[in-house]
């Protein structure tokens, strides 16, 4: 009997290493055969209190392919939320209409709170800058799929390591798998010390760089993120560092053959389009993997896998 039935997924630390692996194994089955009508008697509520393209569509695609009915909204405008209804009341009401709630809300901690007042399981699809655990699960799936394992890998992370929540979650998750971390960022956007501490606490190593070229020969995975202009109080600083975190095809000479480039998307200019045609680009397949991972999570939590 799976331990995942009836569980909430709010933060990446809610699941154990064994449970991540269980979800990835189930997702593999859905990749081979994605259209299975195993949730045809279920209703999934997708409550998106702020806009999202990839996450909402991939959850809805995942639920549709499993035969579930979907209710919800992609914008709180026109709902009772706009009339001032509390999150508490919205969640209590939606609980009575659905078997599972998928929620994105800009307030940090809102998903944890929703899971405490809901009578059905809640999956966090992003609570502000806090957690986005299904993104992390699909990152793990993509890493395992491209490398054949999650163990003992050299993981390079590039860009905004300070504010990027996907980076923090992925570091936390990969600490379970004996990874070595290679961190490339402008000085202003270095990985926070609390996250570095979790690497140290796991007895693992990290190395810091300011230029991508230094990590090309060693990386098994290059995880790219966007450096946003608004993160810099001084626009001159942004201009000075903005090109240090751009990856182009000519920089990939000398990389390992198994190396793959991941990106949570949307991309702006941090990966030039000439990289898309190289065998190392994996970001679009990564987004596609999100559907299988979300199918696996919904099926496992609803107890049909």
């Amino acid at each position, binding site marked *: 009997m799976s331990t995942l039935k009836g569980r909430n997924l709010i933060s990446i630390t809610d699941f154990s290493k064994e449970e991540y692996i269980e979800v990835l194994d189930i997702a593999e089955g859905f990749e081979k055969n994605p259209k299975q009508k195993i949730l045809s008697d279920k209703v999934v509520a997708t409550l998106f209190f702020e806009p999202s393209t990839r996450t909402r569509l991939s959850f809805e695609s995942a639920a549709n392919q499993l035969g579930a009915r979907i209710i919800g909204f992609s914008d709180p405008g026109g709902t009772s939320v706009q009339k001032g209804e509390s999150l508490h009341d919205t969640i209590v009401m939606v609980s009575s209409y659905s078997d599972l709630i998928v929620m994105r809300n800009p307030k940090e901690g*809102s998903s944890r709170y929703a899971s405490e007042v809901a009578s059905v399981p809640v999956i966090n699809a992003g*609570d502000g800058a806090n957690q986005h655990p299904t993104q992390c699960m699909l990152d793990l799936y993509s890493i395992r799929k491209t490398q054949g394992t999650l163990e003992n890998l050299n993981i390079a992370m590039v860009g905004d390591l300070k504010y990027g929540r996907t980076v923090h979650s992925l570091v936390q998750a990969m600490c379970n798998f004996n990874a070595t971390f290679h961190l490339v960022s402008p000085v202003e956007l270095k990985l926070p010390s609390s996250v570095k501490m979790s690497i140290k606490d796991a007895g693992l190593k990290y190395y810091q760089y300011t230029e991508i070229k230094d990590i090309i020969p060693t990386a098994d995975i290059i995880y790219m993120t966007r450096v946003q202009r608004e993160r810099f109080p001084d626009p001159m600083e942004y201009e000075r560092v903005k090109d240090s975190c751009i990856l182009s095809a000519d920089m990939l000479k000398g990389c390992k053959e198994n190396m793959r480039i991941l990106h949570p998307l949307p991309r702006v200019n941090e990966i030039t389009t000439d990289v898309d045609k190289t065998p190392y680009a994996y970001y679009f397949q990564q987004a596609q993997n999100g559907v299988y991972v979300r199918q696996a999570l919904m099926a496992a939590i609803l107890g049909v896998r």
Partner: protein
Amino acid sequence: MENKKELVVSAIENGTVIDHIPTQSVYQVIRILGLEKYKDEVLIGNYLNSQKLEKKGIIKIKNKHFTKEEISKIALVAPFATIINIENYKVVDKFQAELPDHIENFIRCANPKCITNSEAVPTKFDVVDHENLKLRCHYCEKFTTMETMKFTE
């Protein structure tokens, strides 16, 4: 007679003595315990000589014993204060105010984007560092420290 040297205010028959309060925290302790509104005898001393702290504050509250939650509040603003329960002029219990591992309700999360600051959600924290007073919000997972701490109204 030795006791008399330390206790510069009169003894109480029943109630609680909060001793070894850092001098800067005495009025904060009064505030967080709501003692301004307490309708019985409260004796307050500050900048008294102390072997332990050099100078200390002390509060004696007649006919009042504190709950676990109230003692957590004392520990937050006056770490290691001594709580002395008195009955019939005798000490029946004496212990240090210590922070529990979890704190609920009376502190606000320092993160303005936290759900607890926009909805009527009671706050919950894990105390991750007892010595340097660092609390981790159960909801938004951000840290609240001594410098950013505010009490709920």
